[in-house]
């Protein structure tokens, strides 16, 4: 009697499993091709002068922030609304250390500064995360991080001589002698870090850490009773997400060469990355890439053809995706076979 039941389950589930494996291979192949394409693009396309150079650079910066949010919001289920604060703190860490020549290295794209630009937000996230994550859950945690972002913004605006106030810090005069502003460098650095961030999220979420993070997302109480130190893993994911946002902030700061509260602490760095993750597919490894390309493409072309009105287009796209693809673009592949005969989305 029970054998009958087992057979039924096997018949239903085995093809699905094979499909999953095949889909994984296809994604890995596509990802390898994409990496090859973007890594070699500057050799046959003038990244410095062509508009796609700036376009892709911005997409990569957004991908880094989005992957950070994907880890804490997508995989661990903790909705952080403080990514712009971490982005800004990262940008300022780089700018102020460079401006005051603290490290004395004096060269452009200093890897030490870039790592420090991640470490400072990481520490901030631990300091803020321990009280917030041990006391607040769900929506309340989200508002707690939003409050932290507001505090950080005001602190930098009123930072006086230290932060340069609302005008921020001009970094152009600090460029080392003989250094040329070439967007190719920015493009490669941003791309490399975006790929690294993706790999970090991939390996974290497919390892044992990922088991704990996903368990926390589904049921914190149950995860704790199976031995997971819930607070530790939540703070860890929050802090790694902050690290990524901070490094992205430093890369963006090197590109602008002027770091001000209005360009690195703006809510763009908070809402757009979240939008990209949700649009691409929350808790998927490639979702942030798809989302970043699509959202940035819409605002890029929208800005040049429908200046002043383009947020309307973004808004319509977002509403449409949420209505018809609640699990994001990555959910499209799973939906394909039965796309026509599902009640939802066929009308």
């Amino acid at each position, binding site marked *: *009697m*029970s054998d009958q039941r*087992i057979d039924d*389950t*096997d018949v239903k*589930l085995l093809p699905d*499993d094979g499909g999953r494996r095949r889909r994984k291979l296809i994604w890995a192949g596509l990802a390898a091709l994409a990496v090859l394409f973007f890594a070699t693009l500057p050799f046959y396309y003038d990244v410095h002068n062509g508009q796609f150079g700036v376009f892709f650079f911005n997409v990569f910066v957004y991908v880094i922030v989005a992957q950070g949010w994907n880890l804490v919001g997508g995989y661990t289920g903790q909705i952080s609304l403080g990514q712009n604060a971490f982005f800004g703190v990262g940008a300022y860490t780089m700018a102020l250390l460079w401006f005051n020549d603290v490290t004395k290295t004096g060269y452009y794209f200093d890897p030490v500064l870039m790592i420090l630009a991640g470490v400072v937000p990481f520490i901030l996230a631990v300091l803020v995360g321990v009280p917030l994550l041990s006391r607040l859950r769900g929506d309340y945690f989200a508002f707690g991080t939003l409050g932290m972002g507001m505090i950080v913004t005001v602190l930098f605006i009123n930072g006086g001589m230290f932060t340069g106030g609302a005008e921020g810090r001009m970094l152009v005069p600090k460029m080392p002698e003989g250094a040329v502003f070439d967007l190719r460098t920015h493009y490669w650095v941003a791309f490399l870090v975006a790929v690294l961030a993706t790999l970090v999220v991939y390996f974290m979420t497919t390892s*044992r850490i990922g*088991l*704990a993070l*996903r*368990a926390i997302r*589904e*049921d914190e*109480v*149950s*995860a*704790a*009773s*199976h*031995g*997971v*130190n*819930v607070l530790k893993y939540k703070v860890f994911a929050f802090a790694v997400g902050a690290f990524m946002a901070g490094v992205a902030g430093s890369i963006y700061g090197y590109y602008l060469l002027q770091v001000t509260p209005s360009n690195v602490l703006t809510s763009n760095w908070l809402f757009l990355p979240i939008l990209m993750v949700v649009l691409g597919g929350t808790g998927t490894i490639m979702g942030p890439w798809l989302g970043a390309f699509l959202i940035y493409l819409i605002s890029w072309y929208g800005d040049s053809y429908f200046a002043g009105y383009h947020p309307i287009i973004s808004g319509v796209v977002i509403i449409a995706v949420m209505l018809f693809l609640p699990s994001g673009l990555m959910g499209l592949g799973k939906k394909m076979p039965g796309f026509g005969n599902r009640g939802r989305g066929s009308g």
Partner: protein
Amino acid sequence: MAAGAPLLTLSGVSKHFGGLQVINDLDFVVHESETVGLIGPNGAGKSTVFNLITSIYQPDRGSITFKGTEITGLAPHKICHMGLSRTYQLVRAFLKMSVMENVMMAAVYGVKHHEQGPKQRAAEALELVEMSHKRDVNAAHLTLSDRRLLEIAMGLSSMPSLILLDEPMAGLTEVEIQHLLEVIGTTRDERNFSILWIEHKVDAVLDFCDRVGVIDYGVKIADGCPDDVACDAKVIEAYLGEPVA
């Protein structure tokens, strides 16, 4: 079965929610390699006892010791690391994860320091509950009885000395209950752990357990071997109401 040293001891534990006294001055002991049932009518406070033991709630008064160490108010994950696992009445396996991922998660983060790696322990636990052939199935696709078995496997994978079972038979059919009892019986004999079992279905508990405690309105009204408890006047009254005459 001769019981060993006390493993879990509750002494004078009380808990109230607002004006409602849920548990009142409860004393209870589970010994090593003992299977103890805890029964009582609806709302008697059975699940609250589990939530107090696993530190989901803090008791107002009293103390709980496990293996001679005070665990009152200890973080839930630390209690799990000491070798105490539990299942939930409303199954709380991780539905978006596969069976193997669920058990691996429990094996990796459960009790530390084992000769066997977590992979081995997870595979063995699945073998014990006869779910190995469903290791790649998502927990969301399992039947209720399979989810209960999965939760038991998750508990077993961390090699606990005591398992708390919270109404494992609720909502199962007669056939599924038989299978569950068989699985629990054979794993208990193989691993020799203690069980504290909350159940609504009194007959199954009376057959299966070495000792049975009965609580009603948060107060222990009986504690003894199943046959004595079943004939206890107070117990009959709690379940069936006061006699007319």
